Structures are given as C-alpha cells and as structure tokens.
C-alpha cells in the first residue's frame, strides 16, 4: 500500500510517454492552430504544408487526421 505525501505528479492524463512522432505532431499542430486557423481544412493544409505527415508517411486527409486524433485523444 503506497501512502507517500505529497503526491505531486505532473502527468496524470497520459497512458504512455509520447513518442517522438507524437511530440512532433503536437508541436506542429499548435503552430498550425496559431498561424492557420481552427478549421479542419486549415489544419490538414497546415500540417501537409509543413511536411508533418501521418505515421506511415502519407499526407493527411480530413478523414485520416480525424481518425488519428480519435486514436491519440481517446
């Protein structure tokens, strides 16, 4: 039984340490949201323009981006 005080844990929402791919995608997504806008079309265009592609290397479509977000943000 653990009973240590204080509990101070930065990361309480993660299931795993993000992979380099996830870090890169997140950082680019923030940049895209900041510079390109908040619409799905803006995001897909912005990611592809920065050559930050899906894990298999293919350019994003709205469908593939949506599916990947649903996987990573479940």
């Amino acid at each position: 039984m653990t009973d240590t005080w204080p509990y101070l844990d930065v990361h309480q929402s993660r299931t795993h340490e993000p992979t380099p791919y996830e870090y890169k995608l997140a950082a680019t997504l923030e940049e895209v949201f900041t510079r390109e806008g908040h619409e799905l079309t803006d995001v897909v265009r912005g990611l592809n323009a920065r050559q930050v592609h899906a894990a298999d290397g293919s350019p994003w479509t709205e469908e593939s981006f949506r599916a990947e977000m649903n996987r990573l943000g479940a």
Partner: protein
Amino acid sequence: MTLSSSATADHIYATGLRNQWHAVVPSHFVAPGAMRKVTALGEQWLLFRRSDGALSMLADRCPHRGAPLSLGKHLGDRVACWYHGVEVEPDGTVSSVPGLPGCSLEGKKLVTSLPVREVAGAILAYFGDEEHPEPAELTLPEPLTDPDVDAFLCYAEWDAPWRYAVENLLDPMHGAFLHHDSHTMFDGDTTAKFRIRETARGYFFEKTDQRGVNFDWVELCRTGVDWVDLSIPYPPSAGPGGAFGIVGMVCPVDVRRTGVFFWRYRRVQDWQRASWRFLYRTLIEQRHWDVLEQDRVMLEAMPADADQRENLYQHDLGVVRLRRLYRAAAEAQSTAGA
C-alpha cells in the same frame, strides 16, 4: 461516530466543515482488491475496495483496542485487524472475533463508515458528525456531468491549510501577477474593480470591467459539496473550443495539509475534443502544472499567522466573504460552547 459535534469551532474551521461532502483522493488511488490509508478532516480513514470495485470508507481504528485497520489484511470482502485478528465488514460491522468466537462484539456496527460516491475520477465522501450521520443532498458540478464537456482531473497535495487553497481561488486578481508569465494568464489589466454577486448556491466574485481575458471571475458553489467554477482563455495554439474551465475542490487533510482537485474542462466535441485531449496529454498538461506549482510555492510559503496580520483591500472581498461564511458554519456546527 468519529467526527464529533462537540469539536470546537476553531477545530472545525481548521480541519474542514462537517455535514457535507468532500473530495478525498482520486479513485485510482484505491485499486480493486486494495486498501489505502488516508487522512481527511484531521482524522485517519481507511479506503477499502472489493475486487468487484465496490468502495467503502471506514474509520482507521479497530473497534477492539484501536489499532489501525490499515495495517491489517484485505480479506476480499472485509478487513482483518493485524493485532488480534478482529474482522470488520465494509459497513463497519464486526463479523468475527477469531480469538473468542461468539464474543458480543460480533454483529455490532462499531466502526464509522462514511457514505461514498465516485465522481469524474475522484472519491467523494460525506463527513457527517454524530448528530448528522445521514448524507446531505449532493448536486454535482454541471461541467462534470454534462456529456458535451470533457474534463481531465489534476490532483495534488500541498502543505498549506485547506482554507488558503480555497481563498486562493476566490482571489482572481492573483492571476495577472503570480501567473503573469503563464501560457494562459499573460493578458489583461493589472487593475480591476470587483463585485460580489450572490446566487442561490453561493456567490460570484467577478471583475466589473473585464471578462474573458484573464482569470476574471469565480463562482463559489455550495451544493452538498463545496466547489468553485471559473474560466480562463486559452491561446490560439490550444485549437478550437474556446476557453477552458476549472472545477476546483479541496480535501482538508489536517490543519496544515490539503489535497487539491482541479478538473480542467472544455466544451468540445468530435475531432476538436480529440485534438484538445491529444495536445493536453502531450504538451498542455505540463504548462497547467507549472501554473499550479506557482500557487503551491506561494501558499506553502505563507506564514502560519498570515491571516492574522493582513491589510486587505477591495480585491479581497471574495476572501472576506468566504471566511465569514466558513466561520459562521464552523460556529453553527460546534456544540462545544453550547
């Protein structure tokens, strides 16, 4: 009962109000089939979870001679005290005295057991004193029950009195100073006028001249459990969905320790929800944490007599109102002087 109505008002004020619900610890602190010792409202408790997930909260005190049940053994559907083996059921009934079968303790409900509920990843318990054992009606914060709202719980333990943690939330103006270098509270005026607006369940403490820029308002809600609601804008990098909100609760652990519960929530659906959740886990949670650490550093460094030697001004009305309310409740709950 463990919590006595003859406690002094000072003791109640220092260790937390009785006869209401409080958040205790996150649900995952007690795995199925496990138990965990916790301190809350200045007393020792045992959280006990059966393997099917059913949770109970018992006074951590063996009914025989007072040994902590938390040192005992989890027997699946009951706990056995390590000292002489007395077995206690989740509702506090002694089921067996192994050393003296048929002993009159058997079948008696001798251990306090608190009503518990699990809400959005946290364990809530009702801390009634001996005159109020029946749980108060509990209305949960809407952001935690609204299906269109998504929330992450952040729990942390601070070496500061519980009331300082609540006062900090009723003091929105600190956002523009203490958190000026944060990802969310860099903007807005560093001067403001505030007002108190009473509601049926508590009060708003809000700026009269700015909204939607910094930490501009907070609502104290007393709905069987005490909580605050507030909203803070995100920068554009956080994507669609607008501001995030915080539902905050505190667990008064003892006179100088507090468990804080912050549910960061956002009204987002579909891919916008998923992208926020992804960014939150990967990058944003750390930034929220850094902001919270600023609060912890400040509150833990406050001198013990901080609230005895103050010079308050208009921005502190929310705090003054809170103290008056809590002080009156503590007086009302104490029959010590009666």
